[in-house]
């Protein structure tokens, strides 16, 4: 199965050899590394006496551990400083490009590779980070790997992989005003479950997907992994090519035409065979908010926390655990649940179009009393572009802090974290227990515009009521 799909074609192009264990040795076109999952891989490479086979195909940045207030070196946290220094040393020693702090190109790894034009259609992309699925937005086959595999890619520019099945997720119709790619993907995960995609690559297609900007497609593919699908992708089209044209690493001149021809030929054709197919209607999706402890525990903002009877029998233990942990009762309307912290950022929703959508709601409003609200751009380029448009001023005037780029409060590896039982409205991707740095902290996932709605209301609120005039979707090719 999966014949004629982009997944199948890219797989065949990158097949190096069939391995005795039954796996395929797959060539990796782009390898991205950061400070958390690479140090042990470099150490293992040294132990084996191997060198980096294609240092020009690996690109590094620093994102997880960087503080978002002062980024002066050395960092206040000696462990964070040691991790960055180790990455710097490894990159220098092996001739790997590192987009470090202050370079103008630093940022969350899944934000910078697309904006530099490193991520291109038809590539295989690997990174020691599960949200590598983001790069599938370009029609690349992109997946997260562990540290032993980072070692393998460094040593051989290839990996041992098993082939996935392909499920096409066809989305009809158009998203309503105030409903974003984040809501779409939270809805898909709600319906198909956090395990539903295990063993599959998700191909997102259909009119609603074609209408999405590149940044929205990145949000969508970013969370494929939260639905269990190790990679998600969208077939490359005119939107993809328009985004890529002119970026630093994109082909130029005559090469551009040859590239577009090769990329176009890779898209799933009408003859493509899928292992499974699911259809959604975009128009039926409401702004979606998670109430529980997995990204699959999402509901429309106009719904109530599900009762046990509304839950599949085998999900009930998890549902009960979520009631206890979140301190939410079945039947409670999610709208109106008070929040303490509002976070806009992460590789899911830290791009320019996200900040524009959030600023449009924040403009002329103010964060409610007692709420801590902050905005963390996904990269130095996003920060510069947003500042050039005056978005930072809009956020500051509305009572948000405007921070330096990094992963920030998406996970607890830098000073940004929840305290105690605090509950956050967060534009990030994981609401796992303890994810945001407090072992008892709670997370409600939602779109950036919904985070602003929560910040100015003091509780979960339906952003559709705060958006008066319908907004025209921005093509959002992030060119400032």
């Amino acid at each position, binding site marked *: 199965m999966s014949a004629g799909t982009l997944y199948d074609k890219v797989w065949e*192009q990158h097949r*190096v050899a069939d*391995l*005795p*264990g*039954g*796996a395929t*040795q797959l*060539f990796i*076109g782009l390898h991205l590394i950061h400070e958390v*999952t690479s*140090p*042990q891989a470099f*150490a293992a490479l040294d132990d084996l006496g*191997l060198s980096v*086979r294609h240092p020009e195909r690996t690109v590094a940045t620093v994102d*997880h551990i960087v503080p978002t207030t002062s980024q002066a070196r050395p960092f206040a*946290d000696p*462990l964070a400083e*040691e*991790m960055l220094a180790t990455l710097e040393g490894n990159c220098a020693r092996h001739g790997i490009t590192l987009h470090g702090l202050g370079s103008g190109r630093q940022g969350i790894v899944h934000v910078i590779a697309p904006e530099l034009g490193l991520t*291109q259609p*038809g590539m295989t992309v690997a990174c*020691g*980070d*599960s949200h590598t699925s983001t790069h599938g937005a370009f029609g690349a086959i992109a*997946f*997260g*790997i*562990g*540290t*032993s*595999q980072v070692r393998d890619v460094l*040593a*051989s520019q*290839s990996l*041992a992989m*098993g082939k996935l099945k392909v499920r096409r997720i066809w989305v009809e119709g158009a998203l309503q005003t105030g409903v974003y790619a984040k809501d779409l993907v939270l809805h898909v995960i709600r319906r198909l479950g*956090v*395990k539903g995609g*295990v*063993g599959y690559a998700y191909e997102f297609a259909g009119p609603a997907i074609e209408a999405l900007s590149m940044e929205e497609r990145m949000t969508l593919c970013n969370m494929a992994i939260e639905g269990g699908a*190790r990679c998600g992708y969208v077939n490359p089209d005119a939107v993809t090519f328009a985004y890529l044209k002119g970026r630093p690493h994109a*082909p130029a001149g005559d*090469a551009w035409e*040859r*590239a577009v021809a*090769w990329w176009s030929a890779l898209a799933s054709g009408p003859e493509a065979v899928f292992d499974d197919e699911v259809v959604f209607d975009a128009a039926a999706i409401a702004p979606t908010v998670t109430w529980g402890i*997995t990204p699959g525990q999402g509901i429309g903002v106009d719904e109530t926390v599900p009762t046990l009877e509304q839950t599949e029998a*085998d*999900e009930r*233990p998890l549902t009960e655990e979520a009631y206890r942990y979140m301190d939410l009762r079945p039947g409670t309307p999610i709208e109106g649940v008070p929040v303490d912290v509002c976070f806009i950022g992460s590789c899911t929703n830290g791009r320019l179009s996200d900040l524009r959508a959030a600023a449009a709601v924040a403009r002329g409003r103010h964060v409610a009393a007692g709420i801590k609200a902050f905005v963390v751009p996904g990269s130095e380029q996003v920060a510069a572009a947003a500042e050039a448009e005056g978005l930072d001023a809009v956020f500051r005037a509305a009572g948000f802090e405007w921070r330096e780029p990094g992963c920030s409060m998406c*996970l*607890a*590896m830098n000073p940004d974290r929840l305290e105690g039982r605090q509950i956050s409205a967060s534009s990030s991707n*994981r609401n*796992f*227990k*303890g994810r945001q740095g407090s*072992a008892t902290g709670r997370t409600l996932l939602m779109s950036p515009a919904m985070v602003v709605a929560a910040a100015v209301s003091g509780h979960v609120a339906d952003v559709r009521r705060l958006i008066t005039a319908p907004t025209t979707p921005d093509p959002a090719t992030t060119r400032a």
Partner: protein
Amino acid sequence: MSTTPFPAGPIQRCEGRAVVVAGDDIDTDRIIPARYLKCVTFDDLAAGVFADDRRERAGEHPFDRPEHQGASLLVVNRNFGCGSSREHAPQALMRWGIRAVIGESFAEIFFGNCLALGLPCLTADHDTVLALQAAIAADPSAVLQLDLEPATVRFSAGGKARQWPLTLAEGPGRMLVSGEWNGTAQLVAHDSELRATAARLPYLSGFAAA
């Protein structure tokens, strides 16, 4: 905590007492919270395994219960190891002493990370896993014998033995049993194949004219 060395070479069998961590969708943030990832080696990860869950359960977490100290088999439920790709998760389990995992299902990246470290993850259907978990709860001191070929687990207690079939996909099974689970050398050895693949990918030459 175990001082058993990390596996090397063929892995055919794993013997020892077992510990059960029940529940579906146990993510890698729970197996090893992010704050323990601030490190440049994996050496000290045993202390962080299930850290937040253990603190919450104040000595009652299976990894803290005296009867499970020294256990080398872990029995879990569905979608174990979902979420973050951190290899710190299997590293932390192994540094605590775990040498094989049996569950209803595993998240893919986690399964691959375990395989690369020589930590076999075998599956069984829901009822089998529940029966196994119940047997361990009834007699935590029992020694289990897990075989990879054929994939089975044997539970012996009080002179009586029970055996259940397990599932391990053919590829990973062969890799573990043959000792080829740590395949870096194999990948590197395919030099001419790597060159041939690189030569046919147009983006590696910047889409230069043919």
